């Protein structure tokens, strides 16, 4: 096993004349639940897209379990599970079929897949709905299905991009519980969110980024203490002079 689960070095990603990520460097350890915080457009999803091999860096590098995202994307894809910000699913398949399809894409053996599927669905409390067509699910249910699609391969590293957006509080709590269990199982979880309370509740460490740049890095409690703030929202306000949700 490599020293770090993820290592990002001087990563810059530009789209024409827009710099989405600017000289970002991070190192994330194994088993860590790491939050990337920032308003919409801060560069969180772009960072996740680079880590999941969907985008190539303009400058700098990134490795996932020692696999370079540019030179060894196949190696990266074997160890990650990605829950994208916009839940992508086949509407004419059932929830179960969508999840199993992703397991097949990861070449999970059938018996393992069936067992893992049952366990995940039970934990996510989706047993009663899993055989319905995905197009008939509510937004919150789709997000939960999308998360199960990301985790059915039992990845070493889970990349969860805004997994609780637009969820009702109850569903969000259920997902939080699920994420905690991932960490307890020793998984490395990268969670992007613009909900500060979510990061505060779940993450071992957070990176706060704004306009593509890293502006603070540390454990939530340490950051609050350092900036004499009651919560991460206030930390962000003190660092940037603006409320986090202004950018939302």
């Amino acid at each position, binding site marked *: 096993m490599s020293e770090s689960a993820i290592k990002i070095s001087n990563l810059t990603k530009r789209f024409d004349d827009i710099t989405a990520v600017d000289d970002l460097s991070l190192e994330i350890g194994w088993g860590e639940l790491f939050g990337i915080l920032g308003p919409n457009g801060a560069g969180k999803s772009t960072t996740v897209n680079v880590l999941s091999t*969907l985008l190539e860096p303009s400058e700098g590098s990134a490795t996932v379990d020692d696999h370079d995202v540019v030179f060894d994307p196949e190696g990266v*894809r074997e160890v990650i599970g*990605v829950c*994208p910000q916009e839940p*992508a699913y086949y509407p004419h398949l059932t929830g179960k079929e969508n999840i199993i399809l992703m397991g097949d*894409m*990861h*070449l999970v053996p059938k018996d393992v897949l069936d067992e893992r599927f049952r366990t995940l669905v039970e934990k996510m409390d989706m047993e009663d709905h899993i055989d319905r067509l995905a197009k008939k699910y509510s937004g919150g249910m789709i997000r939960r299905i999308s998360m199960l699609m990301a985790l059915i391969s039992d990845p070493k590293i889970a990349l969860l991009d805004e997994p609780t957006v637009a969820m009702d509080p109850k569903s969000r709590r259920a997902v939080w519980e699920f994420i905690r269990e991932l960490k307890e199982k020793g998984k490395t979880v990268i969670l992007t969110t613009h909900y500060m309370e979510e990061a505060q509740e779940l993450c071992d460490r957070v990176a706060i980024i704004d306009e593509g740049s890293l502006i603070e890095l540390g454990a939530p409690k340490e950051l609050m203490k350092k900036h004499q703030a009651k919560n991460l929202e206030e930390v962000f306000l003190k660092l940037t002079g603006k409320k986090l949700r202004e950018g939302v």
Partner: protein
Amino acid sequence: MMTREPAVLFMLIIFPLAMTFVFGLAFGGIGGGGTTSFDIGLLNQDVTSPQAEWSQSFVGNLTSSEVFVIHDFDDNITGQAALLQGNLDAFIVIPEGFGVSIESYYGSPFDPSAWSNSTIGLYVDSGSMMAVSAVPSLVQQALLRSIFGEAAVAVGLPVEIGSPALVESSTLTQWDFMAPGIFAFAAIFMTMIVAQSMTVERDEGLLRRLRTTPASSADYMLGHTVSYMIIAVIQVTLVLAAAYLIGYRPSTGIAGIGFTFLISLAFSLVSVGFGLISATLSKSADTSTGISFAFIMPQLFFGTFMPLGGGLEFFANLMPSKHITDAITTLFLRGAPITATVIWVELAIISVVGFLLIAVGIFLFRRQGTR
């Protein structure tokens, strides 16, 4: 999944089946494949002369044929009008002096200058391919039988013209000519479905999601292609079954049917390839339908059962659908054996074009990325 998308189910399964039934019933009829009959209008102007028995004999020979249904007319104008309105396949006018002509022949069989010539008016519906090709020959036969009798028609000659097609064509319906085109017709619409599904998967972020898995682009494309090949097999099975149900009996055996499946599989590659290219050219799923029709329509009009001729044949030969239709026509209509070189050449053409189109489609689709 197809059964959960009514539009896809309709285009890929219901539509080809409906086409088979509609065209089969319209141009062949239930239990078709039997004898075709032609509605013939008849104006006999030689009924009162002393030699009228000759015209009556000719009418009798026309009527006794199972091929002609004779409708008597009292004047030329009404008969011609019926022909123009499509109520008749042909209109025959037996002239006054018809019997005299035959009598004059028998008076001096070796002296044409002594004959009293007359001309039978034969007007055929130019809108009916079958009538144009079959009626004149059949009328000629009835005429020869009237002049020389049954024995004369069957007289042995040292040289004979091999024309089995004359006999065969009289038992074929228009549907027999069209049926081979239905197989291409069914598969052509796969292009639209492929284009739509690919653009939806791209626009909805599914391709991006799949790209984060170990499955490669080639795996993904192969999966799609194989699934559409399975659909092609289902289409061929259903179209064959439906055609058989309404009486269609192709002039080929099990090997020929097997070849039909084989060439349809190859043709599905063509449709998938065009679908991929359409998806690449489309900015959204909505526009993909329109763009895919740029590939569908020429193949429909130039390559299936639409009648073509002259310079259009050149364009037709550029259409992959023309080659599958030709191969199946050769088997089903002409009864060529499975060893006939021409059908394997057609299969080779379709296969090469199919693989090329798939390769171009994959290249363009990958180059475009997942947006």
